[in-house]
């Protein structure tokens, strides 16, 4: 693996870990990969510390970008990509593992609605509400 790929993996794993820890503390059950909050905290901390230990095992990785290191702009881009992939993975995986959760009545609370429901259920509920509103508002202007 190149340093860039290793960095991307570090960001992905540590972001997955921190979201699990934060979701456990924030009571966002719909964002937990496993139902148990304590287990999620331990797993999240394990992911963060484990990925950092793996990446920095041989030292500070102090390599210039002219010699295989990662330039500042690329580092920023890789972090955004890794963070995005981690969130996408968490949202999709938790929507699958928690699919038995009932959709919350009010999903307009954003993250708070993920206490009761999953990301996919909450988002689809919000989009459906928006679509209904759009149809209602545009009905009198439509010819059909």
């Amino acid at each position: 693996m190149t340093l860039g790929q290793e960095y991307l993996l570090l960001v992905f794993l540590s972001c997955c870990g921190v979201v699990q820890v934060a979701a456990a503390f924030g009571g966002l059950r719909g964002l937990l990969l496993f139902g148990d909050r304590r287990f999620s905290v331990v797993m999240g901390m394990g992911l963060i510390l484990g990925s950092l230990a793996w990446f920095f095992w041989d030292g500070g990785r102090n390599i210039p970008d002219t010699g295989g290191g990662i330039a500042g702009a690329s580092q920023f881009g890789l972090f955004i990509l890794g963070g995005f992939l981690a969130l996408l993975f968490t949202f999709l995986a938790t929507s699958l593992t928690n699919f038995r959760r009932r959709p919350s009545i009010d999903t307009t609370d954003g993250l708070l609605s993920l206490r009761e429901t999953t990301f996919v259920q909450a988002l689809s509920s919000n989009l459906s509400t928006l679509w209904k509103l759009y149809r209602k508002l545009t009905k009198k202007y439509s010819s059909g």
Partner: protein
Amino acid sequence: MEAVSQADEKVFLWINHWVGDFPLFDRAIEWVVSDYLVPVVFSVVLLGLWFGWRSQAMRERHQRGVMLAGIGVGTVSAAVMTMNLFYFRLRPFATHDVEMLFYVPTDSSFPANPVAVTFAMATGVWMANRKMGTAMYIIASIYGFSRVYAGVFYPLDVVGGALIGVVATCLVHLVLKRIEPLPTLCLKVARFLCIA
């Protein structure tokens, strides 16, 4: 100005001359000084602050802090890039006999860009959470010190970078207040998408 520069160099040489005397400390500094450790840890903390609160009010307060930190980092990076177009200070190793614990960078020594970025993040968080922000300021200061110890920056570069990071983020805070419906609207859109 010359006297300040000479004093800066003296302080730098005094700090850097300890390299090699304490191998374990040097090893620890090689980790702290890394381009990856502190920035990644800070960014992960920002992500945690975005998600990890039980009440909507606390969550929104911290999300505003994270937004501020993010925009602050962008502003600081642009400010440092612009400054480097007009002012270039040679790195310490270019003019002194320096013990290096880091690779040889080629960009301007003043201001210390990585320090400016970490202080911008710390300031954004400090606006929302004093304890966490203070902890981040302390870590950012250690990061800055490690860069001087490793022979990469003069102390004034680090102090300048820290000041630029803090001031730029405070300015962004004022601008965000002036354009107030916009940040709230962004948060509302993010809330609709269930990511805030």
